[in-house]
């Protein structure tokens, strides 16, 4: 199983789109830095993300949400909010890590 990280906002770059297109079903996707903007419920990329989440598990870093004033309660259902310890744990649990910029 692969862990994919996405660190760019979908409003800025198409990294998330590429990640969703190329990641295998069953993968984990972790939104970090500006990547967390994608997880906003009702956002322009919510539908695409929810579609991808039917076969993938989605995570977001709490500190990156907080730094941007985003409330975890306002995220798409099913996005798990984790801290850096959780990031490390996720990286150990997955066989490889692919970063999308």
């Amino acid at each position, binding site marked *: 199983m692969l862990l994919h990280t996405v*660190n760019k906002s979908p409003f800025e770059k198409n990294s998330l789109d590429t990640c969703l297109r190329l990641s295998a079903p069953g993968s984990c996707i972790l939104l970090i830095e*500006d990547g967390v903007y994608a997880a906003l419920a009702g956002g322009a990329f919510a539908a695409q993300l929810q579609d991808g989440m039917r076969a993938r598990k989605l995570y977001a870093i709490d*500190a*990156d949400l907080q730094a941007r004033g985003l409330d975890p309660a306002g995220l798409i259902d099913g996005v798990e909010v984790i801290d850096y*310890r959780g990031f*490390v744990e996720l990286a*150990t649990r997955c066989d490889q*890590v692919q970063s999308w*910029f």
Partner: protein
Amino acid sequence: MKFAIVVNEGPYTHQASDSAYHFARAALEGGHAIYRVFFYHDGVHNGTRLASPPQDERDVVNRWSKLAAEHDIDLVVCVAAAQRRGIVDAAEKKRHAKDADNIAPGFRISGLGQLIEAGIRADRLMAFGD
């Protein structure tokens, strides 16, 4: 588990150096090891000791130096990227006849092979940057 980290972005640009640092700290606190941190492209700017950020702000360069000293971490700056961007150690100063060097404590300048080797030796290679 052994982690290798590559930082491709300069400090204070977006957030790559911060994310990499926080990941490294969390990994160490979780009982894991950091095999090497490799600074590539604009990431080499993480390795200048001449940076003087405001005192009430995080000190990105110094933070790496301290982490390396505390946990004996190998901080490697890519030589080709460093030459282009003016990151110089004592050997590079001599080799290129410069009047100064600026490498921060705990950092060393070496080749891209160090990144490849880190990718092979570590259990996971984590990339942060642009």
